[in-house]
């Protein structure tokens, strides 16, 4: 079972990001990502949490600060999986080919990758939809394909940028549960970005609350409820208590962001 360890996957020190427009998205962000943990970055929109995630993925350059990766192989192509807010599928390719993409780009043949792609699709419950095209799927199913694609290469680190924000509540709860199950099976380190207090508490064992203008860490909370967590956790007093703490931290972060 996956639990946070003391080993650090990546650490950000004094990371800042200034866009060409002059906007300071991040200022002096200090953050350690620990192996095996489910870390959530929680904050109001515009607090730079997505920017932090993109910098971790190497999709964006930090303007200042250092990011260290104790294990260099954790940055190799295919070692990081990324799930965007939109499913970001290729509409001209069927479900199999979409999930096969990371392998195709790594030069792995379809036959060689087939077993792993199919396993990833089975893992998100889409084993029977390999031949379907994205437009034939519901929003939740598209997001599942996106998750399967990110997990197919068995990444060390899975980065998720508000992946369920556009989904209805029923699909979101179901995907929350499935995501936790996958995380427990595989022991992948997850960094999850959301603006939902409830989602952050349900999923993570560590929550970093961020404040805006510029984005930096405001508070850190630990959710020590053991996994597996299920629907009964959603209605427990413990969950409510954690949510209250996270809400208060978020309110504080927003006030700090406004006064800055």
């Amino acid at each position, binding site marked *: 079972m996956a639990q946070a360890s003391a080993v650090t996957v990546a650490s950000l020190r004094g990371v800042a990001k200034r866009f060409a427009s002059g906007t300071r998205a991040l200022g002096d962000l200090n953050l350690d990502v620990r192996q095996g943990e489910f870390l959530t970055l929680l904050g109001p929109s515009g607090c730079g949490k997505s920017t932090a995630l993109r910098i971790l*993925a190497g*999709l964006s350059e930090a303007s200042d600060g250092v990011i260290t990766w104790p294990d260099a192989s954790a940055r190799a192509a295919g070692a990081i999986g*990324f799930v965007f807010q939109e499913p970001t599928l290729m*509409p001209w390719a069927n479900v199999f080919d979409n999930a096969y*993409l990371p392998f195709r*780009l790594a030069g792995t043949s379809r036959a060689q990758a087939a077993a792993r792609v199919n396993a990833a699709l089975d893992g998100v419950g889409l084993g029977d939809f390999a031949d379907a*095209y994205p437009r034939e799927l519901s929003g939740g199913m598209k997001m599942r394909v996106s998750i399967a694609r990110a997990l197919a290469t068995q990444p060390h680190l899975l980065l998720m940028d508000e992946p369920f924000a556009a989904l209805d509540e029923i699909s979101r709860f179901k995907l929350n549960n499935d995501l936790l199950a996958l995380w427990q099976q595989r022991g992948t380190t997850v960094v999850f970005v959301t603006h939902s207090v409830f989602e952050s508490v349900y999923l993570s064992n560590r929550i970093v609350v961020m404040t805006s203008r510029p984005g930096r860490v405001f508070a850190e909370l630990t959710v020590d409820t053991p996994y597996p967590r299920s629907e009964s956790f959603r209605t427990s007093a413990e969950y409510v208590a954690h949510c209250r703490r996270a809400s208060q931290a978020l309110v504080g972060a927003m006030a700090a962001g406004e006064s800055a």
Partner: protein
Amino acid sequence: MSRAGTRAAPARADDQLRRERWLRVLSPIAALVLGVVAWDLVVRVNVLPPYVLPSPLLVLQTLFADWAILWRALLTTLAITFEGLILALAGGIGLAVLFNQSRAVEYSLYPYAVVLQVTPVVAIAPLLLIYLPQQVAVLACAWIVAFFPVLANTTLGLNSVDRNLLALFSLYGASRWRILVNLKLPAALPHMLGGLKIAGGLSLIGAVVAEIAAGSAGAGSGLAYRIVESGYRLNIPRMFAALILLSATGIAMFIALSALTHLLLRRWHESALVEEG
């Protein structure tokens, strides 16, 4: 809802759909028949001589009587049109890819592509005919008018790739070549096909304009040349017959390119989606 109700509703919808389909096929045919009858009446009532306005029947007779000449002319025009279209496709897509890969090339060449497009081809044709052999000049005209829509649409398509997909490709270490082949070109395909559909008609127009500009000097005799020649000879029925063939060619090309578009996009693109329910 009662069982009878649930069964009757789809049946009624089916009927309506069928009637709608027949209406779409029969309405234009009815309009055509009415138009031809009106044409025929105008000729008969006014007793117009064929060199003013031939009757539809005479045009049809001429079409059959002159078939040997017209068929050869049609083949010539078709060959030029297709060659122009294929060159336009190659040139338009090739140039769009080049523009997409290098901003410097795009900035230096795009304005001249626009100049080529906005200068009326009728005005360029006589000049081309001076410097190039006639066949080549006609082909060049077809290419000039047809390549721009392919270029403009493909450029638009290549530039409107999903930014997140682009980020994903770079996350997995994709090369420029991979990004072009596996992401940008498929994403641009619907735009490309839209450009091709316009280019098909324009290529025919370019070929016709150039042949008309070539006029009596023309040794290679396409349909447009036959029209000009028949005009000089006051052979008005043959002008009409050649014109009908030209229209038919344009329509056939449009249908063929629409079918190609549907075939390539039917599985995934919104434009090919059949509304259900």
